[in-house]
């Protein structure tokens, strides 16, 4: 789990890596830009399914981005419902 400030700084790191933090900061920026072009505001969350593994990121009430790399067996449905994913 990683917690990133709106500027991309690592505020908390529990099992994440600096590379993951950099990548997610960049991905956040790209999603904001893509949304802007399409007239979509207020990024709230992102879920990606990879060939191996998953990644979930959401913006909390402080504006920080929380990044999760759940284990394959983890059930994310409750979190998905909460985040509207």
């Amino acid at each position, binding site marked *: 789990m990683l917690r990133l400030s709106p500027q991309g700084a690592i505020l908390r790191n529990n099992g994440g890596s600096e590379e993951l933090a950099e990548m997610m900061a960049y*991905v956040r920026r*790209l999603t904001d830009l893509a949304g802007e072009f399409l007239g979509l505001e*207020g990024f709230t969350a992102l879920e990606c399914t990879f060939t191996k593994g998953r990644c979930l990121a959401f913006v909390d009430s402080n504006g920080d981005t929380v990044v999760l790399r759940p284990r394959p067996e983890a059930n994310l449905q409750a979190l998905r419902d909460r985040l509207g994913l």
Partner: protein
Amino acid sequence: MTGAEATALSDGMNASLATLKDVAGIAGSFVCTPNGRVVAREISALFDDAVLVEAGSRLVRMREAFAAGGDELEVGVVRFRDHRIYLKSVGDSLLCILAEGAVNMPSLRMAANLVGRRIGGAVAQLEAEPPPIRTPPPPPAPPPSRRMAEAPPGMRRFRGRPVD
């Protein structure tokens, strides 16, 4: 591939994308190749091609960012306040679906899987095509110069009349 063949492929894909709208809440969709070309679209004309290229190229770059970290994206959901963008990898391209926040996600996933499978062959053919050469627009014509009323050498003019 001739222009007509490429158009036929795009038209076929557009027809497949149109079937996504059977799922309530889907506003439209488009397909963006790794080099940023939009090869199919079924979305309101409010979103012109340039906008889709800009948005699509960012989403393609997002996929590349994950790939650089060793993660090959299959499906992604980007949630905004009232909408979401559903992404599905089709070959090296991305099928991007714009949906309302309250869309039925299981239906959307199923429809996207079917459409992704249907357009996979056409996308692969279009990916192999080199991107169209962009010729720069011709420079704007210089503004018509205002012809000043020029007096012959040795003569001065004021308000069109010769003066000494």
